[in-house]
């Protein structure tokens, strides 16, 4: 037999029992050639282009799923940051474009389309300012559109004017979608050092240096790693790192295979495999459970950050060995609402916002799907964003904030979206004011780290 009995059973166990799946196959489509003076023509060009490339996306991905017996949780599309080709538009026109994206996404049968994006780490054009202004309206008037704004980078520093603007946008979005637990905020990411080939929605966009069309893939698989760690039993940390690496190696290889096959079927180039461990609300598919299996009593216990750092590093080492096309975020995600173990840790009072922030300094991607009281001040949200961005630019890594100031909710309440977005308990935010600092405006200069030439 060309494969050992155990090898085959291992693969079956991963795919059938331990929730190993491909989290997303994301088609990146450039919209740079879609601008026209007439907004109606622009809309038609956008719609036609997404349909031209994306029409078969879901169907072909499903074919690959059944061929290899590995399920693909999400089929999605990312587009060029909308503010770039359509810089001449005003806020109303941007909202029209968002609706067009929504319609195109619905037509090709995908749940999310991402790239309603502006990159303003150093400054803003008029178009970018208009796009940011339009975000609360665009997200409340569409279902499938996801937005992101990059407000800092290691090379540029942190644009604090944009940080304050985004805090205001988040609050407005929460209010405009208050009937659905402020779901608009779950589709809005504020980045520092955003990456151009990230396949994970909501933060995905098709960067300006990307080709016309590309297919990126994001793997999942916390459940597989969890089982491997449990099986390893009481071994020392070096051995544990080996166990994690072996597991990640295998799932990265499978991920790349699936990505390449979907790309091949679509007749488009394959881009990258993002080796981020992405949890889902399913039982056992949790990063928090991995950390507990590594030995901390619960997420939030001293030692959590160290355990997460080791997990994340082992994931990267194995992924790099397994594929020459590793890209995107490629770290462990620690969203609260999408991870049962994290939800439990918050509810038990073991995990605070501050500890979560510390954890984001050693993994991707940041404060993700964190719900806070609806009456949190704009300047406080700006302070939270600035803190995360600082971790990002100083450590030359991607960080992000996807925070939900849930309208009308307070500590003890929940926001509940169901599905992959899950549910999040409202977390406590310190009452101390950040207004004086964030109100200064301007830009935090680029750090020492930026001067590498």
């Amino acid at each position, binding site marked *: 037999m060309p494969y050992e*009995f155990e*090898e085959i059973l291992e693969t*079956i166990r991963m795919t059938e029992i331990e929730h190993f799946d491909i989290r997303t196959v994301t088609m990146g489509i450039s919209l740079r050639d879609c601008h026209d003076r007439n907004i109606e023509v622009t809309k038609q060009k956008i719609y036609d282009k997404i349909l031209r490339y994306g029409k078969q996306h879901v169907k072909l991905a499903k074919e690959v799923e059944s*061929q290899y017996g590995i399920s693909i949780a999400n089929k999605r599309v990312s587009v060029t940051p909308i503010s770039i080709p359509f810089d001449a538009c005003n806020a109303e026109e941007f909202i029209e474009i968002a609706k067009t994206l929504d319609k195109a996404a619905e037509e090709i049968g995908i749940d999310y389309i991402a790239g309603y994006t502006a990159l303003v780490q150093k400054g803003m054009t008029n178009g970018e300012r208009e796009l940011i202004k339009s975000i609360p309206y665009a997200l409340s008037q569409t279902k499938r559109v996801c937005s992101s704004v990059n407000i800092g980078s290691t090379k540029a520093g942190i644009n604090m004017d944009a940080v304050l603007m985004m805090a205001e946008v988040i609050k407005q979005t929460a209010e405009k979608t208050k009937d659905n637990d402020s779901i608009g905020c779950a589709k809005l990411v504020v980045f520092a050092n955003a990456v151009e080939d990230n396949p994970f929605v909501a933060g995905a966009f098709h960067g300006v240096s990307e080709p016309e069309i590309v297919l990126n893939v994001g793997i999942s698989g916390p459940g597989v790693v969890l089982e491997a760690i449990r099986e390893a039993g009481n071994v020392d940390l070096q051995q544990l790192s080996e166990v994690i690496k072996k597991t990640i190696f295998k799932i990265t290889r*499978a991920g790349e295979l699936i990505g390449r096959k979907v790309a091949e079927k679509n007749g488009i180039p394959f881009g990258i495999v993002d080796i981020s461990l992405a949890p889902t609300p399913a039982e056992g598919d949790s990063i928090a459970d991995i950390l507990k299996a590594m030995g901390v009593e619960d997420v939030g216990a001293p030692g959590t950050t160290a355990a997460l750092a080791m997990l994340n590093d082992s994931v990267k080492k194995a992924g790099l060995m397994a594929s020459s096309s590793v890209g995107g975020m490629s770290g462990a995600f620690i969203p609260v609402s999408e991870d049962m173990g994290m939800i439990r840790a918050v509810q038990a009072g073991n995990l605070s916002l501050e500890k979560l922030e510390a954890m984001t300094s050693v993994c991707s991607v940041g404060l993700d799907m964190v719900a806070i009281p609806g009456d949190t001040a704009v300047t406080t949200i700006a302070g939270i964003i600035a803190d995360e961005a600082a971790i990002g630019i100083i450590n030359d890594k991607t960080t992000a904030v996807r925070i939900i100031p849930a309208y009308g909710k307070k500590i003890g309440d929940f926001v509940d979206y169901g599905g992959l977005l899950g549910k999040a308990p409202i977390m406590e935010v310190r009452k101390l004011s950040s207004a004086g600092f964030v109100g200064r405006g301007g830009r935090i200069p680029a750090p020492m780290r930026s001067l590498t030439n």
Partner: protein
Amino acid sequence: MKLSEEEVRKITFEAISELGEKATPEAVKELVRKRVESMDSDYKYEKSDVSSGRVILTSFGLNHPGIVAGVTKAIGDANCDIQDLSQKILGDFFTMIMVIDISASQKDLKEIQEEMNKVAQLLKIKIYLQHEDVFRYMHRI
């Protein structure tokens, strides 16, 4: 390599008309054999080009008589070729893994999977069919 009766008849008639006056039973037989052989080699070349005709079938469940018979019959009916087979009993549990070549089958992988699902329901076992590549990628560097 399988030829339908009609194809064999067609090749034979072609051979007879080609040979004309010289058509003896032996000469016809020889010519037909050569013709079929050349077709066979073309076919083989194509097959080796598509490395991916093989799938791994994994079946398991509580052991009871008739599982192997049921599964192999379905594979045979679908015109798939069993290239390797390994089977173990662990306690009450039955596990069987097969490498099968589906390139000669008229059905595609999806249809074969559907057939196997029916068999699995009937035998109260689980059957998974996955393309060989996924195992090659995961377990071979």
